[in-house]
């Protein structure tokens, strides 16, 4: 376990190797990326098994007073800033923190990254920047794994920014397209706004605790070194960063645009891994959020719920397949945040994984559809199950899983969230969560039926099933989306369910609230049946439903005017303000303060230089007059 830091290192080395030597290697060096991530995935199993074998006597391991989990922390000195022992000096560490949360997310990231990279081999075939794609993918995997393993906030922040830049590069991968460039910039800038909060939060914790170490920070919160006000502010600031990365309202606008990137990128970064970094951060820093009556968690819960609800309604009316999935991702990230806000760390992590597998699967399925039909609008598809049966089946598994149909992974994780919300938050939360879950089933059903069911369009008759390199990863993810829920049960034997593996302070066994289960099953089934009736059998007229809700529909179809409002703010506030600053810079700083003294000197020089005529007689005359004057002076003195 001490060597767990090697997991990201493989991928870190793969990236520059591919860039530098890729063109001399077979498949442009893409295999290096895959080998690196396979080693990372193997590393996950090693870490998992050695964590299971470890106890408090193992080196570096202890039972955390904060989380009550067996935590292993291996710290190494990075460098000293300032003179050691003097005020203001700080020793920076890099190190790894391994606890069940780390392990769970490690497994998710390495597995999905591996699947997506294998899928990309076929999907990106023939792209002129094939090698570059895999290099950035490797760099992303390395950064994401560092983010997960980091034991201090500073290292986490470095990795946090690295995944941000990788996301930027991959969204803008086809930078010949202006829309891709714009989307990449938008994603980077919007998440940066949240990152400022994260950085300030980290520095605030450092000021209070004197170290960046997470374990120390949590101890400081528990022992009261960090006061209530500071802790709450720090938690909210950290959450700002999490909101940016996890696309929570009002920072969600970048994620739908991020779909400009290649579809496997959307699957990996914008569905399963990078966007969960925010959820991971809140779960990781949970002692800070939970301390002092958990005021910060209430904020998390409300933001999560609003995000889940708003994004779900937009997903219901979006027509672009990838955008439907993107809004669905935002909605489910909101559910994870809500779950954390309801003290449901287990539920959040479980849903993070179940959603990660299902959504990666859906995106890969969408990629497969786009690959063979070249269309992205759901209106252009329909009936595709006849030409691409495997994609249709796995996509449906993903959709049913996220929609919350029993036995599939998404049902169990959603159930955990509902239980957590029901236990710890008031009744309005559970009603809205159930409503969101129903919307989730409805839009998933809509996407599934619109794309794969109904009559096959003539333009799509040439469409064909994708090659094995693409279907195999989808099938593997499909198996997980189907059966991943199994890990949540308390099996006979030593395993007591996910709630006894990842938890916060209170280990709890699997339990199933009957009324919640029944209601959510009924809602999910009802929603899928409704979707079937609307989009396949057409027995419920879409037009009359639409006209009945015309007013709301217009708002929702315009995505609640978030982009318009932001554009207005940018045009009318930010740019006007920036222009006045620019004017100040030009007129005051540049023209007066910098050019001003230069001008004065120059004009003074011009005035002075007239006596330098360059003619000998002028100088002679001056000399003669001067000597005569001097002589006169001396003579007058003598007289």
């Amino acid at each position, binding site marked *: 376990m001490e060597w767990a830091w090697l997991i990201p290192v493989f991928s870190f080395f793969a990236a520059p190797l591919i860039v530098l030597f890729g063109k001399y290697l077979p498949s442009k060096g893409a295999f290096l990326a895959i080998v690196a991530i396979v080693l990372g995935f193997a590393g996950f199993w090693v870490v998992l098994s050695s964590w299971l074998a470890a106890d408090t006597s193992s080196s570096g391991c202890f039972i955390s007073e904060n989380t009550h989990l067996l935590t292993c922390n291996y710290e190494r000195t990075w460098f000293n800033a300032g003179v050691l022992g003097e005020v203001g000096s700080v020793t920076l560490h890099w190190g790894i923190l391994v606890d069940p949360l780390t392990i769970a997310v490690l497994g998710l990231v390495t597995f999905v990254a591996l699947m997506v990279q294998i899928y990309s081999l076929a999907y990106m075939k023939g792209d002129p920047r094939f090698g570059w794609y895999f290099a950035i993918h490797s760099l992303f995997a390395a950064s994401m794994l560092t983010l997960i393993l980091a034991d201090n906030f500073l290292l986490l922040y470095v990795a946090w920014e690295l995944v941000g830049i990788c996301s930027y590069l991959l969204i803008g991968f086809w930078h010949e397209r202006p829309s891709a460039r714009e989307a990449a910039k938008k994603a980077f800038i919007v998440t940066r706004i949240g990152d400022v909060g994260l950085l300030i939060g980290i520095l605030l914790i450092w000021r209070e605790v004197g170290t960046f170490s997470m374990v120390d920070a949590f101890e400081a919160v528990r022992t009261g070194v960090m006061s209530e006000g500071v802790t709450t502010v720090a938690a909210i600031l950290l959450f700002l960063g999490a909101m940016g990365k996890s696309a929570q309202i009002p920072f969600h606008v970048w994620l739908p645009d991020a779909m400009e990137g290649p579809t496997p990128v959307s699957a990996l970064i914008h569905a399963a891994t990078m966007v969960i970094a925010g959820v991971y951060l809140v779960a990781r820093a949970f002692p800070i959020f939970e301390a002092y009556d958990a005021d910060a968690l209430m904020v998390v819960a409300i933001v999560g719920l609003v995000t889940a609800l708003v994004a779900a309604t937009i997903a219901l009316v979006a027509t672009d397949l990838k955008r439907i999935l993107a809004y669905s991702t935002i909605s489910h990230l909101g559910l994870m945040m809500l779950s954390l806000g309801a003290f449901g760390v287990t539920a959040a992590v479980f849903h993070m994984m179940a959603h990660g597998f299902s959504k990666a699967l859906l995106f890969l399925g969408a990629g497969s559809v786009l690959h063979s039909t070249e269309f992205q609008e759901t209106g252009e598809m329909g009936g595709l199950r006849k030409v691409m049966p495997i994609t249709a089946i796995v996509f449906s598994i993903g959709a049913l899983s996220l929609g919350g149909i029993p036995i599939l992974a998404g049902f169990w994780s959603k159930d955990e969230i509902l239980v957590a919300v029901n236990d710890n938050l008031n009744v309005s939360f559970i009603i809205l969560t159930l409503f969101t879950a129903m919307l989730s089933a409805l839009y998933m059903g809509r996407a599934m039926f619109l794309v794969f069911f109904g009559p096959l369009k003539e333009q799509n008759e040439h469409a064909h099933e994708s090659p094995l390199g693409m279907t195999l990863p989808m099938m593997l993810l499909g198996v997980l989306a189907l059966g991943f829920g199994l890990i949540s049960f308390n099996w006979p034997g030593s395993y007591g369910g996910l709630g006894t593996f990842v938890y916060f302070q209170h280990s709890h066994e699997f339990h199933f609230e009957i009324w919640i289960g029944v209601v959510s099953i009924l809602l999910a089934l009802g929603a899928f049946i409704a979707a079937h009736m609307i989009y396949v059998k057409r027995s419920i007229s879409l037009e009359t439903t639409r006209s009945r809700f015309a007013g709301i529909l217009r708002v929702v179809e315009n995505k609640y005017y978030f982009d318009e409002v932001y554009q207005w703010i940018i045009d009318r506030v930010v740019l006007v303000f920036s222009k006045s600053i620019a004017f100040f810079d030009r007129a005051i700083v540049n023209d007066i303060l910098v050019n001003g003294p230069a001008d004065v000197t120059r004009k003074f020089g011009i005035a002075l230089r007239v006596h330098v005529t360059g003619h*000998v007689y002028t100088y*002679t005359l001056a000399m*003669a007059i001067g000597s005569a004057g001097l002589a006169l002076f001396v003579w007058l003195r003598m007289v």
Partner: protein
Amino acid sequence: MVDLVWFQLLSAVLFVIGLYGVMARRSAVLIVMSIELMLNAVNINLIAAASHMEGTGKFTDFDGQLIAIFIITVAAAEVGLALAIILRMFRNKSTVNVNEINLMKW
């Protein structure tokens, strides 16, 4: 013996003629000649003063002559240098008219 003031008058006249030459002439060669004239005016003044003040005890007897000889030596060197400069000047600009040589101007 002729009165000292006549020598001084001659010296002053020669000096002013030289000064006028330096200021009014345009040819560099003539200017150098005018400078020589001024130097010699000073020499006359010095030698006259020296011979008239012989035995007054105010100066050593040969002070005036000594300085005059120094001036002649320096003047010879100065002419050599000045003529060399003028030659270079002529090579470069094909003229020795000082009005046309104003590179030192701003």
